[in-house]
Structure formats: structure tokens, C-alpha cells
């Protein structure tokens, strides 16, 4: 028996739950449901609507991209040093810290977001402390900052882990070689460690940016619905507006955007380093 038969269950799974849905999304996107219940081919009209409606959707899209970029940047700035210290010799023995970083990932993200709500609410934990100390109550929930916080909190481990893996696997002799050739610790980092960890950074960016650009629920819960993101819009089209066709068009549009950005990131990865090893 050929080994490839072993992949049959997965192939069936993929056809049913990945290929078919994509085909349907594509079909919905290029049709419009008429009042009589029949679908009518309308070409790119749905896609065109994304740009119409006085730019409402473009504004949401722009906000989503901008928040996702901010989230990715913050995750990178927080995550890299964290991964660096986790991978260093001094921390190698302390598994606790590593587990603490992984721990939130083992819980459903909705649970974590609800927990964040409890933290940020008008009468939440933070505000109780603030008012108990005699300060004015802070407006936390319902701000863009709260949404950004929620995203960073949820996606930070996805930045830390791939970078940590690359740094951990890095040949210590290469670092020593750089020191040996006269590089002080700062130069060793900029000239050797950082360039060699780019595959991990690219992986991290991919794994944070992709989900955060299409994120929903976080914006609804922590932003109190004041900050609709493209993921929320798509959810609304399917769940409440019942306009699957436009929802599909938006999904398709996002998918293409994401594919383009993955392509760009991969190109960066290849031009910078010979081999990508940042997946984990």
C-alpha cells in the first residue's frame, strides 16, 4: 500500500472544509440574491461596493490595517527582548517563565478577552484600584487603546515563540566568532544575532499580523462596538444583515490582501537569509 493513502482522511477533510467553502465564498462574492430567492450573476459589483458607500468600508478596512500594524509593531517590540532573554543561557534553566508565556495560549481567546473586560470596565479591577487610591476614574473600556491592548495581549505569544525558537537554535559559535573578530555585545547583536533571527521575526509578524487584521469580537467587547473592524463587518454581514454575498466579497477581498502581504513577507525572508527556519 502506498504511503500517500494515509493522507486520504486529511484530503477529504480539506476538500470539504477548505476547498468547498472557498469555492462558495467565491460564488457568493460574484452573485447577488434577488427578492425571489434566486442568485443572479453580478460580476464584480459586490467587490465594487466595498469601495462605495461613501468610503465607510474603506475607513473600517484602514482602521483594521492600522490597528493590526500597531499591534504587530508593539508585539515585536515587546516580544523580541522577551524571546531574547528566554533564549539566553541564564534563563535556559527556568522553564517557569516559558510556561507562563505559553499559559494564556492554552485558553480560549474569548475567555481571555472577557477577563480583560473585567479588568478594564468602568467598575473593573483597574478602576477600583485607581479610585481607591483617590484618583479619577479612567475611561478604559470602549477606547481604541483597549482594543489594541486586547489584540496585543492575545497575539503576543505568537510573536515570542517563533523568535525564541530561532534564537534558541542559533549556533553559539557564530556569536563567539563575531566577538572574536572584535564585535562588542551591541555590534554582535546588530550584525549577527538580529540578521540571523529574521526568519523568526518574519514568522512572528505573519502569525500576529494575519489574525489581528481580521480580528473580531475583541473590538466588539473591549471597544464597546465603537471601533468596527473589518472582521466585525464581515461577521455582521453574515450573522445579522444576512447579506452573504457582500460578506463573501469582503472576505475574498481580505483573503487577497492577506495573500499579497504573505507573499511580500516571504520575499523579504528569502532575500535576507538563505533558508527560512522560523516555523515552529
Amino acid at each position, binding site marked *: 500500500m502506498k504511503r500517500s493513502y494515509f493522507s486520504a482522511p486529511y484530503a477529504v477533510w480539506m476538500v470539504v472544509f477548505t476547498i468547498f467553502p472557498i469555492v462558495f465564498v467565491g460564488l457568493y462574492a460574484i452573485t447577488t440574491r434577488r427578492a425571489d430567492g434566486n442568485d443572479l450573476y453580478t460580476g464584480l459589483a459586490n467587490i465594487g461596493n466595498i469601495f462605495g458607500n461613501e468610503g465607510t468600508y474603506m475607513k473600517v478596512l484602514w482602521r483594521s490595517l492600522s490597528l493590526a500594524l500597531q499591534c504587530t509593531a508593539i508585539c515585536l517590540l515587546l516580544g523580541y527582548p522577551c524571546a531574547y532573554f528566554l533564549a539566553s543561557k541564564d534563563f535556559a534553566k527556568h522553564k517557569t517563565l516559558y510556561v507562563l508565556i505559553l499559559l494564556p495560549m492554552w485558553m480560549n481567546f474569548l475567555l481571555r478577552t472577557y477577563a480583560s473586560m473585567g479588568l478594564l470596565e468602568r467598575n473593573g479591577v483597574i478602576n477600583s484600584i485607581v479610585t481607591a487610591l483617590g484618583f479619577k476614574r479612567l475611561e478604559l473600556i470602549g477606547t481604541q487603546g483597549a482594543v489594541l491592548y486586547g489584540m496585543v495581549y492575545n497575539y503576543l505569544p505568537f510573536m515570542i515563540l517563533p523568535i525564541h525558537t530561532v534564537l534558541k537554535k542559533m549556533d553559539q559559535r557564530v556569536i563567539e*566568532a563575531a566577538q572574536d573578530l572584535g564585535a562588542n555585545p551591541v555590534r554582535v547583536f546588530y550584525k549577527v544575532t538580529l540578521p*540571523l533571527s529574521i526568519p523568526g521575526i518574519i514568522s512572528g509578524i505573519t502569525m500576529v499580523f494575519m489574525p489581528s487584521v481580521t480580528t473580531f469580537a475583541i473590538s466588539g467587547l473591549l471597544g464597546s462596538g465603537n471601533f468596527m473592524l473589518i472582521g466585525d463587518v464581515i461577521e455582521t454581514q453574515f450573522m445579522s444583515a444576512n447579506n452573504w454575498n457582500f460578506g463573501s466579497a469582503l472576505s475574498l477581498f481580505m483573503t487577497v490582501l492577506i495573500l499579497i502581504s504573505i507573499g511580500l513577507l516571504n520575499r523579504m525572508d528569502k532575500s535576507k537569509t*538563505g533558508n527560512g527556519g522560523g516555523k515552529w
Partner: protein
Amino acid sequence: MVEDTRLIELKGISKSFGTTQVLKNIDLYIRRKEFVTLLGPSGCGKTTMLRIIGGFETQDEGKLIFDGKDLSGVPPYKRRVNTVFQKYALFTHMNVYDNVAFGLKLKKPEELLSGVSNPTRKQVKEEINRRVTRMLKLVKMDAYAKRSVDSLSGGQQQRIAIARALVNEPEVLLLDEPLGALDLKLRREMQLELKTMQQQLGITFIYVTHDQEEALTMSDTIVVMNGGEIQQIGDGKSIYDEPKNAFVANFIGDSNILDAVMVQDYEVFAAGRSFECVDEGFAPNEPVDMVVRPEDIMIVGEDVGMLPGEVKSVLFKGVHYEMFVEAAGFNWKVHSTSMYPVGSRVGLSVVPSNIHIMHKMKEQTAPAAEESK
């Protein structure tokens, strides 16, 4: 040629990793322009010693003196020492040229162009280019400057690693088993090339290897190490001809090592009979090791030899035959250019000056020495 000034001195260096002591009170000096080889089996502490000189490990006790100054606590990037690492440790994110230029680009412009005041960026770039190109020519890799290091063969990567270190004109080059990954033929070629480079450039080389042939081929001085201790220091010939103990005798070249008793000066008793020898100064009836090199044993007629015996096995080794001859209860390893078939009765003979007498080692640190018995 080797100068008579001490460039590096190790004074009472000890180092432990956890509970294992890898270096025990090492005293050693290395002269300017000397080619020193640290030779020993794996785990003998030779690489740790090299890493202490390079600054990658710190000794627990003792002092490391470099050119008269104590180097303890000086980080690697401030030492006038460069290293060729065991697995090359090239920068895979750079091409060959940038790998070699790495150290030069870190130098201050005034260091690169000592005669020029306020050197321009262009002058610096040209100087770096000049030096890198010259070094790549020296290691015969000038045609590969723009290639990525991943695309090179092991031998080529080795050359780049050497060029990357040498281009900085270090006072000392440390080499950690640099030829270990190469095939035999390439290794022999590189041995000669390294020796030539060392003589041309007049740089002190400290070379770590477990390959005794490599050590004999290249070194001015060989430091034989075992179990974190120096066993013997000397040039190749003196170490080969006059090994200090059974470990050295067995590690450098082949040896027949027999338990013996020094009856009196110039007379040793082993294998059931007395042998005349040239050693003196042992206590009467002191138990000793008697070492005879396989090539020093002559095969003669059964009735004229010192020991009658029987050939047990024959191996053709190219230049000579390696035979095991059982005589007086001992399996003698004998090298000879003439072949005696298995089963033939022969006599063994050895001249007094080829019998080496050694004090018994304090502790049995030479498991390898046991094998031939």
C-alpha cells in the same frame, strides 16, 4: 622562526564544569611565532584551554599572561587573538567577501590606515578591499568572493574561516580542530598550507587536535594532554623518541608497552628475560613500563633472536606490514617491510637504545594503553 620571548603564559590555570575538573593546575608558556599543538584525546581539556586563551571561558584559578599583561576578565573582542572554530562558524547571512571583511569593518579607520590622517570613507573601503582580496588570494578563494557561504564545500568553508581570522593580522591564531571535518587527502594538503602560512605571516599558532600525525607534521612544540593535565611538552621528535610515560608513548605512534622491572641501571627485566637498555637512575627493582616501537623490532631467525615467537596475524599497511608476533606470553606489534606468513616461527630482536623505560603512571589514566596488552 620561533623567537625566544614568551608571548602567552598560563600560570596555574584550573577550570571545572560542575563537578568535573577539566583543567588541573596548567603551567605553559608559548613563544612568539611558535606553532604549538595541544594534543590529546577528546575530553582531555585541550579545547577548554584554547577557549580560555580566546576569552570564551574564564579560568577558576590561575593567571593568563599575554605579552606581559594579565588577560583575566578581558572580553574576547578586546584580545589580539583570533579563532578558527571547529565547525567554521561562518556568518550564513553574508557572502564570502563580507565574512572575511567582518573584522576589518569593525576596526577604527585610524587602525586600518595608520599613515593617513583623517582617512575618508573611500580610502577605508579601498583598504578593506585590498586586504580582503589579498587574503582571499592567499587561501586561493579569490574567485568565490561573491558566493554565499552555504554554497561552498567543507574545504572551501575552512579556507574562508581561516581567511576571516587571519585578515585581522592577529598576534595569535587559535585553531580548534580546524581540519577535523575534511577528508584525509585534503587534510594533508591543508596541514602543509597552514604551516606555510604560519611561517610566511610570522603569527603564533595554537592548534588543537587529537590527531597525532597532524601534530607531528605541523608543530614546533607539541603539548600532550590527558585528563586535564599536561603529560609532556616538546618538539615532535623528542616526544616520539623519548615519551615520558606510557600514555604519551601509546598516544603518539604505536607502541608495545610491557610491565617490567628495572633490575639495575642499564638492565630491565620483562617478558621472562633481561634486556640491556640505556636508561639509568631508577630505584633497584622499581616496577616500570618498558616501551618498544613496532618499527624498532627486528624479525630474525628463531634461533638468533632474543625472543622466539610465532606470527599470529599479518596486515598490509602500504609502506610496511603490521604483524602480531606472540612471544614470551606477549603479543608484540611489529612493523616490517618484509612479510612473514601467519604461523611461521621467528625470532624478535631489539637494540638497547630502542628500549624506552618509563616510570609507572601514578594513576591509570591511559585506558588506551591497556588495549595492546
